[in-house]
């Protein structure tokens, strides 16, 4: 269960009696083991972060020297750039809709599969499969075909007498198909929910059932609180992932943000600005705004966690 919570903080170093340390004292060796990671952390993470912060205050086209513009990129972003604001809107809608729906679906399926009946492992694997395929270009291409004008989805709906537009080409529906593709990959949170459900003591349910609590009340008052740390973990991880969605938007929106920019995800616009228009400074500024937003959202979730996340060992 502990592994399912947010990453554990490092263990406090215990005072050690001479010669009886639980960890070997091996300073030089430790740094030998850490060398690749340290090089990566300095050269590919911290260094680039500092540079990217600097670039976000400049105009930089990759070929001439960066030109300092102060907060110009940031003010332009929020006051002058309609496509930027559009990408913020699209991404927020995507996160706010796909994450809760995905969590609900994955919890529902996990509840369904949380049983001792035979075949559970088989279904679990089958429901997990789309999680591995979903991030690929191939899956996005299939999705595009399924939701196109005369495609299979519309054929089925027409069978019910509903006439529907070409989903992927209609600005009002295009984003919905990408949300569905995101929800389709509910396997990972589902598997984590299942592991969490296995930790809910059966005695609690039995006792409550004897006291006359129905299935819904038991779910509301036993399962949900016991599961809240797992819900919390899934919520944080899925939100972080959703903010960074790219491939489906790129493929389904035809690489250009879809009809009337309906699929202009944040990362898609960032890619366009940075690697097609070579406005690297502006793209860096966009990346930093994304970082700050993700940090704020994570912080909010962590803050409110006290109100709704229940830990058995901390009543």
């Amino acid at each position: 269960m502990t592994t399912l919570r947010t990453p554990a903080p490092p263990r406090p170093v215990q005072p050690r009696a001479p010669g009886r340390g639980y960890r070997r004292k091996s300073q030089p060796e430790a740094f030998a083991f850490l060398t690749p990671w340290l090089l990566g952390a300095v050269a590919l993470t911290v260094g680039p972060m500092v540079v990217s912060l600097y670039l976000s205050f400049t105009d930089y086209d990759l070929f001439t020297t960066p030109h300092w513009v102060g907060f110009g990129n940031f003010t332009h972003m929020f006051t002058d750039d309609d496509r930027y604001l559009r990408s913020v809107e699209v991404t927020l809608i995507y996160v706010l809709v796909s994450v809760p729906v995905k969590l609900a679906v994955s919890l529902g399926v996990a509840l369904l599969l949380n049983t001792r009946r035979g075949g559970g492992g088989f279904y679990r694997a089958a429901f997990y499969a789309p999680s591995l395929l979903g991030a690929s270009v191939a899956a996005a291409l299939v999705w595009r075909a399924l939701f196109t004008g005369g495609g299979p989805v519309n054929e089925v709906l027409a069978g019910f007498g509903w006439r529907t537009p070409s989903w992927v080409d209609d600005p009002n529906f295009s984003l919905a198909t990408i949300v569905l593709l995101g929800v389709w990959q509910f396997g990972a949170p589902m598997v984590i929910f299942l592991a969490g459900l296995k930790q809910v003591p059966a005695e609690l349910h039995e006792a409550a059932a004897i006291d006359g609590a129905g299935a819904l009340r038991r779910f509301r008052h036993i399962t949900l609180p016991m599961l809240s740390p797992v819900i919390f973990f899934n919520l944080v991880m899925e939100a972080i992932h959703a903010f960074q969605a790219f491939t489906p938007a790129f493929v389904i929106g035809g690489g250009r943000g879809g009809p009337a920019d309906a699929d202009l995800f944040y990362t898609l616009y960032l890619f366009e600005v940075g690697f097609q228009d070579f406005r690297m400074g502006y793209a860096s500024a966009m990346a930093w705004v994304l970082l700050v937003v993700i940090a704020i959202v994570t912080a909010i979730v962590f803050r409110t966690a006290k109100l709704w996340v229940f830990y058995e060992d901390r009543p």
Partner: protein
Amino acid sequence: MPRTARSIGWHVLCLCGMAVVLYPVAWLAFASVKPPDEILSRLALLPSRFVFDGYSKGWEGAAGVGFGRFFLNSFLVAGLSVVANVVSCSLAAYAFARLRFRFRGALFAFMITTLMLPYHVTLIPQYVIFQQAGLVNTFVPLILPKLLATEAFFVFLIVQFMRGIPRELDEAATIDGCSVYRTFWHVVLPLSKPALVTTSIFTFIWTWNDFFTQMVYLNDTEKFTVPLGLRLFVDTSSQSDFGAMFAMSALALVPIVLFFLAFQRLLVEGVSTSGLKG
């Protein structure tokens, strides 16, 4: 009897859910062998006749480069990424899980923080570095970061696993005169096999599916990987190319499906114990 009825109901529900969830995959498999005019217009999964033109046409590739080349490139990038990730992440994980050193707490906390860092924040300076070094349009920018353990998720995964290995084993090895390096190589690493296998599988699948990084760094069609090759079909998408596009899409999923079938238990359990995302 009601127990049996409930059980049957449960199976029916599960099978229905499964049909919905796996429909797109089945659709792709059958679309790849349909005559081109049936791909979009026919509701039925099964084709009226099986046509394999899509495969032969698709395999010829696009822009003068065969699809075999894209597969070779993808296997090369994914294979090297697996080796690079396993080596670098297990080294770092051993230090974090088993050794004492200054700043251990701070460095570990930093490693954990990078788990949440959006990739885009380091993307542009990394691109500039590789561009200055003349390495854009090679596979180096795709593999070097993995050799330097920038995928903190895997470091964390292996750390968590190594923490579970009894310390008495290292202590015994030390008493027997093993150096730290020998303890790592002969004691801890062999016992960490499950974590290393999980790391390998996920690295392979993620690299195979990766589109963004490969699109940023690779320009020549010669260097293209499978996802980029698939995209070529979209750019030139006329009705007649659909057959080729879906045939190659189906092929692109084959390695993942094979991995999944071979390791599904491990994959699914790896996710539930580590919180890895698929």
